[in-house]
């Protein structure tokens, strides 16, 4: 009757193994092409980075007082993207939403890789990258530690906490799947998966501990995700720079991150769905649910954006008005318009319709546009405030160079490379969690009736 329900169908375990594990073992030419393209972009970006390190920061378009530019807006963008994977997975795990099962792994992996990429940007944009370790709190003969009063140190700590948490939160729930892969693989792959599986057998004790661990991690990681994006916002909010110095930035960044991250989760699962024929696992039902979350995130994001907008508009503090006018009447006017169209004005009304939410193609296009909008939004946070801050004698304009554009391609290519490689070492749908679903929704014959077994975890 066409109604979208969950779970749509139940398959035998062998079928699930077959469907989900195939990408790990079977490599198509399309994968190689993608790896070649993204790997090329990644290597080119890496080369650009080393070129910049060897030559000097003058190869960028940065200058006084625009000390941060495209590189930092890329950083904020990718940090934002990293938000949603772990958060959505943790939220849904804690709320025991069973429909999460086919998407958690893909989302968590996205978090880890986006974070790995984003964490490079603070290093990329350092004047002396090779001395980055000065920022780490380790015992040293220089008799100086780092300055814990600096938001950059908070940022570094938060990235470490979130990256650590997300990686463990990705890896530990994958242990049972590595065990499955170990049992299905041979040769060198068997050795590899044996190593990854750590000797997982699936005893009662192992399951009990793992479930407890996953819940603990989810509990710990969820607030750390919030803190991480808040602290990124404080890199801006703690300053005296006009339109950076605002207390709304914390929640604004968190929700913005959730919004753009949700969009990327949807983009990714749709690509996986098409690439591996997982239509039976990732269904319009999921798109609908995720779309609703994204819609809420988008509305809250717009609400907070408008809060910020309207206060600086009404207040008309002179130094703020200068930047405000730059965005809304000056140099950055068309960027602002594009952003509003891409992630709010067109997108949010469309998301309100179930028809759009459940259409894979529409959602694919929509989510891409949302992230374009969100990328512009990061740019509009970082750049305009810097070009006309302080004494008007020093005001300037900012034009990124090819180096910065290369380093904008670099994270995308790097992210794709990491994701493509991950496809080959772990199933992107958690096999055991789907099976658990099957157990949970098992039916029992009682007389003539088929009753659903109610199983508590």
């Amino acid at each position: 009757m066409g109604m979208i329900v969950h779970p749509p169908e139940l398959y035998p375990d062998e079928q699930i193994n077959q469907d989900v594990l195939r990408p790990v073992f079977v490599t198509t030419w399309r994968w190689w092409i993608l790896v070649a393209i993204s790997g090329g972009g990644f290597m080119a970006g890496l080369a650009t980075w080393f070129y910049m390190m060897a030559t000097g920061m003058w190869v960028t378009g940065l200058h006084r007082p625009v000390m941060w530019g495209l590189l930092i807006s890329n950083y904020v963008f990718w940090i934002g993207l990293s938000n949603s994977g772990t958060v959505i997975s943790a939220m849904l795990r804690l709320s025991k939403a069973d429909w999460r099962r086919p998407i958690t792994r893909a989302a968590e992996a996205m978090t880890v890789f986006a974070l790995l990429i984003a964490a490079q940007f603070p290093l990329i944009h350092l004047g002396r990258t090779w001395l980055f370790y000065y920022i780490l709190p380790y015992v040293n003969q220089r008799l100086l530690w780092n300055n814990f009063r600096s938001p950059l140190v908070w940022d570094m700590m938060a990235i470490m906490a979130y990256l650590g948490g997300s990686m463990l939160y990705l890896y530990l729930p994958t242990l049972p799947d590595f065990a499955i892969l170990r049992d299905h693989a041979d040769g060198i792959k068997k050795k590899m998966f044996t190593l990854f599986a750590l000797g997982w057998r699936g005893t009662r004790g192992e399951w009990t501990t793992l479930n407890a661990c996953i819940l603990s991690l989810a509990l710990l990681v969820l607030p750390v995700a919030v803190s991480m994006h808040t602290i990124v916002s404080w890199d801006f909010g703690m300053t005296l720079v006009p339109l950076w110095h605002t207390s709304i930035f914390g929640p604004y960044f968190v929700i913005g991150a959730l919004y753009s991250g949700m969009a990327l989760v949807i983009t990714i699962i749709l690509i996986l769905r098409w690439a591996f024929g997982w239509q039976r696992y990732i269904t319009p039902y999921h798109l609908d649910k995720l779309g609703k979350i994204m819609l809420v995130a988008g509305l809250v994001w717009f609400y907070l954006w408008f809060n910020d907008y309207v206060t600086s508009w009404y207040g008309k503090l002179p130094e703020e008005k200068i930047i405000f006018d730059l965005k809304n009447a000056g140099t950055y006017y068309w960027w602002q318009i594009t952003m509003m169209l891409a992630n709010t004005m067109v997108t949010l009304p469309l998301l309100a319709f179930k028809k759009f939410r459940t259409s894979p193609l529409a959602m694919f296009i929509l989510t891409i546009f949302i992230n374009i909008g969100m990328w512009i939004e990061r740019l509009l946070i970082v750049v305009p405030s810097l070009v006309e801050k302080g004494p008007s004698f020093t005001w300037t304009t900012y034009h990124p160079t090819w180096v910065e554009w290369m380093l904008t391609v670099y994270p995308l290519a790097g992210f794709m490379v990491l994701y493509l490689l991950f496809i080959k070492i772990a199933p992107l749908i958690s096999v055991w969690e789907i099976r658990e679903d099957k157990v949970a929704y098992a039916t029992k014959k009682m007389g003539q009736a088929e009753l659903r077994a109610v199983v508590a975890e």
Partner: protein
Amino acid sequence: MADWISDKGLQTTTGPRGAGRRWGLVVDLDKCTGCGGCVIACHAENNLALAGPIDTDQGRSFDWIRIERYWEGEYPDVKAQFIPVMCQQCEAAPCEPVCPVFATYHTAEGLNAMVYNRCIGTRFCENNDPYNVRYFNWFEPALNWPDPLPNQLNPAVSVRSRGVMEKCTFCVQRIRDHEEQARIEGRVLKDGEFTTACAQSCPAKVLIFGDLDDPASAVSQLVQSDRRFRLFESLGTEPVVYYLKGGQG
């Protein structure tokens, strides 16, 4: 202990200080003709690098002290004003706490110190600097001194390398030199015994440098003036560079 956990304890205007000195600079705008002697004196004293025409235009030149010029009105009723701007050595400097590696901090005598060796080039300090008086080494400055120009370099001041931030130091090398001299001679530093390179070069005596904690010093006297103001005072950065307004005030 209370001093340590309360922001008030370290407000240098009221709090305890180690050195018993608090360096300050007074800029009398009523005398400044914008001649620029201070700018070049600073270049010579502090080994400021050359950027070359293209990078100067791109905003990568070095002027630890610069003379800002502001226009108003339309010809013939046009007006302009000069204001020399250097690091304001703020007592509540916004640029200091954001540095993750303590490359910039506040010394006991009120200087906003910059430790080039520690700087890793996050450039956060310049972002949070409302006066835009911090200068980043976008390129290797030593390469822009063709031989034999480096003979001019002042050995008392380190030549910065690529990737670090630099800024006005109130000619800290002169302060140290004269402190040392006074110690050797067993006396205290006298007001006006030495001054910064910019103040020394100024023909109109616009810039006066000295100890704000010494009530008898020239700067202490001048900051009593009704004409006194500080740049962006409303930001609460507590600069120790005091400007005296031009005009009849």
